């Protein structure tokens, strides 16, 4: 980069009418101020503005450059990420020697290199930290999101609404991109259209009855964590004898008795067991690809309509040459089972060695798609499982995309989007809010022969659970099974993107369920919601003081939910038809309305998150057909409940925050 520029660009240049500094361009443009815009005014507001850039990745790098070269001179950039090799094909403020360093810090250094006269403050930090409160946000003229995840987007959206600061939201995925402007009361907010959630799979599909490559890949990542990573009880990899579909199966009743109450066959933790044998690959292989599979076969109810799995034997790995694409190289080709075993053996050796070298503090490995051994392990194990279950195998390249939620990213799309962000900023600074647009970048000209498709900003969804005057959501869950801890972690933080929630039960007594004060409600955490007399129709008053966000939640008690979900969030309660959350007490602004949800744009909007979860949805899109039937079948067990409930509920898909 231009670190070489030690010659200060002095302020004299700015005033020099022929210097070509943006100031000059705008004053030139401003000369005919009566004609159209008032660019000299714009120039002035550019120089006086203070900009927050959230994210210094693909879009962030381009954006910083564009801002500095457009005359913006007071910028704060925040990013908690560090630089990876795979960033270098587009994040041009970074170079090889910067790998591992803070994105925000290096982006600032590089940008100052080409214009030392601007003020850029870099924060290597999460924008969700509590020091970035509403007062912090209020200091900015415009906030620009260049983020790669939904939680942070949703959070910044709330902070900007609370601080009443205009926000420009953006994202890219491969050749696709979008930019939109958000302002309290004047447009939709980020959460006005609940986004389709990241695909998740029922535990029993992962553990017992995979039918698609992704199921095996998720399983292999869980296996990694069980063996080397942070153990998570939700990520068990052994057969699940509590599978509702297998229940009532005479054969498995006996087996179930042997199993631990959690429904797991293993008695010691998987990791402890592996350590006993010093991660002997043949033992691990024997358990996961032979014994566990034989066990699954014994649950014969599962296989009446499915293709049963075939256990593999360590001594007889099929060599199967399936290499039709002879010319293909390295990670593009699909490994044979024997190659998988080879990769499994060598990766386990490396990972075991690494885990032995860990000291007490960090006693586990973290799976990383860019780490070779981690990636080899997941490729090998997922493909071996696919082989066992007669599921098509995937190349390492494809497994990486699916396991790492990788979406393609290139410099050109980011350049285009970052340019569009600046144009929206110009309009905001000129006070021309009505000219702001929601702009989509398509991969090819659309039906109207346009690559860029601008549309007017939609007005806010009056029932938005974030920006409406009285935000409301309805949550379907099982009150006797959901713990307060899960409710906080999965519903409030995970789905509703709160960061420091306080929750009070609206029971006339002011029972405090969750407090953001540390330690105040610790003893509640392991209890279930029903322990607090929360039942069907109970209302909860939630508050996030950091986000300055209040939300009323109506609980609907459901013993089972479709697709074995733990809970479902419905943003617009009027979508519950016909019994529209009638049991709920208190004001219910939506019940009177029979109108459909005001906006259904969620269906057409491309889900866009650089480096994030899009590929998941794209990858699954084709397979949805395959998946649906099995999932439908999975719910047969709870048919009596779900069948009738779902008929009554008739949920519109757009209003479900899927989890």
């Amino acid at each position, binding site marked *: 980069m231009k670190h070489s520029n*030690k*010659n200060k660009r002095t302020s004299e*240049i700015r005033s020099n*009418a*022929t*210097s*070509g500094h*943006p100031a000059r361009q705008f004053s030139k*443009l401003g000369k*005919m101020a009566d*004609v*159209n815009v008032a660019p000299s005014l714009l120039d002035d507001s550019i120089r006086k503005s203070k900009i927050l850039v959230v994210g210094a990745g693909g879009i962030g790098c*381009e954006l910083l*450059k*564009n801002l500095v*070269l457009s005359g913006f001179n007071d910028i704060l950039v925040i990013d908690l990420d560090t630089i990876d090799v795979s960033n270098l*094909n*587009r994040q041009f403020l970074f*170079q090889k020697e910067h790998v591992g360093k803070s994105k925000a810090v290096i982006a600032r250094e590089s940008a100052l290199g*080409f214009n030392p006269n601007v003020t850029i403050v870099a924060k290597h930090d999460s924008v969700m930290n509590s020091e970035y409160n509403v007062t912090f946000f209020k200091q900015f003229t415009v906030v620009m999101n260049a983020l790669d995840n939904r939680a942070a987007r949703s959070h910044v959206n709330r902070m900007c609404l609370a601080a009443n600061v205009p926000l420009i939201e953006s994202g890219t995925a491969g*050749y696709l991109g979008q930019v939109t402007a958000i302002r309290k009361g004047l447009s939709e907010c980020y959460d006005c259209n609940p986004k389709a959630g990241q695909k998740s799979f029922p535990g029993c599909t992962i553990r017992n009855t995979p*039918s*698609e490559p992704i199921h095996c890949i998720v399983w292999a990542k869980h296996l990694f964590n069980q063996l080397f990573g942070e153990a998570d009880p939700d990520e068990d990899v052994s057969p699940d004898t509590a599978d509702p579909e297998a229940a009532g199966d005479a054969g498995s009743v006996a087996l179930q008795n042997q199993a631990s109450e959690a429904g797991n066959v293993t008695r010691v933790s998987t990791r402890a067991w592996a350590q006993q044998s010093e991660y002997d*690959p*043949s033992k691990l292989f024997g358990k996961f690809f032979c014994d566990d599979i034989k066990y699954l076969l014994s649950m014969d109810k599962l296989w009446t*309509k*499915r*293709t049963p799995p075939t256990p593999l034997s360590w001594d007889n790995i099929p060599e199967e040459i*399936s290499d*039709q694409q002879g010319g293909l190289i*390295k*990670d*593009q*080709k699909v*490994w044979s089972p024997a*190659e998988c075993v080879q*990769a499994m053996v*060598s990766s386990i050796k490396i990972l075991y060695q690494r885990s032995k070298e860990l000291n007490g503090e960090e006693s586990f490995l973290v799976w990383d798609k860019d780490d*070779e051994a981690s990636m080899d392990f997941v490729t090998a194990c997922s493909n071996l499982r696919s*082989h066992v279950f*007669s599921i098509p195998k995937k190349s*390492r*390249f494809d497994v*990486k995309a699916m396991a790492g939620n990788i979406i393609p*990213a*290139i*410099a*050109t799309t980011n*350049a*285009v989007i970052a*340019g569009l962000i600046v*144009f929206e900023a110009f309009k905001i600074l000129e006070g021309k809010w009505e000219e702001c*647009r929601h702009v989509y970048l398509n*991969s090819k000209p659309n039906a109207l*022969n*346009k690559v*860029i498709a601008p549309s007017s900003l939609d007005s806010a969804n009056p029932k938005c659970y974030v920006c409406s005057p009285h935000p409301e959501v309805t949550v379907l869950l099982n009150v006797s099974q959901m713990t307060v801890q899960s409710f906080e972690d999965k519903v409030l933080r995970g789905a509703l993107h709160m960061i420091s929630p306080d929750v009070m039960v609206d029971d006339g007594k002011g029972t405090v369920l969750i407090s953001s004060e540390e330690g105040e409600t610790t003893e509640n955490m392991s209890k279930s919601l029903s322990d607090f007399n929360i039942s069907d129709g109970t209302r909860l008053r939630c508050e996030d003081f950091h986000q300055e966000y209040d939300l009323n939640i109506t609980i609907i008690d459901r013993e089972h939910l479709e697709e074995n979900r733990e809970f479902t969030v419905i943003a617009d309660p009027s979508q519950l038809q016909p019994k529209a959350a009638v049991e709920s007490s208190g004001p219910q602004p939506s019940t009177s309305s029979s109108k459909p949800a005001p906006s259904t744009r969620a269906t057409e909007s491309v889900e866009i998150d650089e480096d994030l979860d899009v590929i998941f949805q794209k990858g699954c899109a084709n397979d949805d057909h*395959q998946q649906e039937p*099995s999932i439908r*079948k999975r719910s047969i067990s709870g048919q009596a409940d779900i069948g009738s409930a779902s008929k009554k509920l008739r949920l519109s898909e757009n209003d479900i925050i899927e989890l």
Partner: protein
Amino acid sequence: MASPSPKSPGQISDKSKKYDRQLRLWGDHGQTALESANVCLINATATGTEILKSLVLPGIGSFTIVDGALVTGEDAGNNFFLDHSKIGKPRAHVATQLLMELNSDVKGDYIEETCDQLLSNNPDFFCSFSVVIATGLTEKSLHSLSSNLWQNNVPLVVSVSYGFTGSIRLQVSELCIIESHPDNLLEDLRLDKPFPGLKEFMDTIKLPEMNHKQFSHTPYLVLLYKALEIWNDRHGPNPPSNYKEKEILRNIIKSELGYGIVKEEDSNSGDEENVAEAIKAVNTALTKTQVPSNVQKILNDDQCIRLKEKNSFWIIARAVKEFVEKEGNGVLPLRGSLPDMTSDSQRYIALQNVYREQASKDAEHVWRHVQTILKERGWAGESVIENDVKLFCRHSSELRMIRGSCLAEELDGKQLPPDVDINQQLEEPDSPWLHYLLLRAVNKFHTENGSFPGYYDDNVETDIAKLKGCFSRLLNDLGCQGGSLSKDDNLHEMCRYGAAELHAVAAFIGGCAAQEVIKLITKQYVPLDNTFIFNSVTSTTATLRL
């Protein structure tokens, strides 16, 4: 099992790590094409360097900057690769140095001469480039460059950022695309025209003799095929084509195929996964197998029939044409891939092999035609590579060809495309044709006055009047009667721009243009045809064909 130094199948090079996110868009072969490409940028303007930036980052082979200018204050203000300390130094040299810092895999070179000098001193200079990118050229220089490159068959991308507007013009005489990456590619299953291997395979499968388990693990393609046989017996050789007929076929799948199969203790008959898949696939899997019109156009093209040049694409296209007329019996080589489906692996793999074998047989036929064609014309055998033939066959249903037009002819042209009603276009407030004509008008102004309108602060008022004159004469030249002159606001706006190149516009145009260059180089995805107009005030774009 455990070999001492297992050559892990996943040894990944640094390069593929660095380029991982883009390999997912254009693949290894696209990357190879990019890495062997050699582009030339004329003038290191803000737009020009932004384009090169987006080519250097993904790893273009090499670039050369041709620029006779020195760095000015204006450059330092709007160009990321030129800063104030470099004012007065050769722009080509400085920009090359800084661009090369972006990616050590890329070679950079520069020539401190203007485009005009090069064209007159060394007219063949540009012949060696994969693509030439031009920015900041006058209409006259552009005219000579365009003619030169058109004759030499080198693609040209002209990019302009002018105030709040911009444009990109692609000049490519002919571009043949094998991998066009269409959005909705139908499976190539041939159920309506089964090849002998498929027929043979299907005939060995006897659904009624299966038990329920075997039946429910049969690939849905087999069910479709068998249902279609029943349909053909009753309704003749044409597969169902409308909703009503497809419903009949669905009913056959639902109730007749598994008929008589003992359902064991199972009461939930009819919800077998494969049956559900077959019913769902009725809509997509039964499309008529035929040569798509865009491919037919290529096979019927003069180039394909007369085959005057030793060009790999056309040689293979000709071979495919012969295949279609002979062995293929009217259809293209088989793609050879199958969608995922519920099945036991044994039968899935068997079915997969049936398709693969046919596909490689078809490709083999095409390969033989290629060799005959080469021999007949006395062309060297290595003119076509067998792997290219395979790739071509696999993608033969998505071939695209673009024939462009010469920019010099457009500039000389006496009329706009006949299907454009320019008077009507000019009535619309944000018509792309208006922006196109305004950009032409400022160039005309420059040709006549030696500077752009509004460039010098003192002349603005007179420039507006002059630009009005240029605009109406341009309309007259193009044969537009009484061209609406109520465009004062727009003409004032053009003068106000004073040819300023705003960085944000340059960044946007740069990103778009670089993407087009990558399409030209990788010969993947369909490039724009042929003029792109952008107005940043309204965030609108349009593609015009000139």
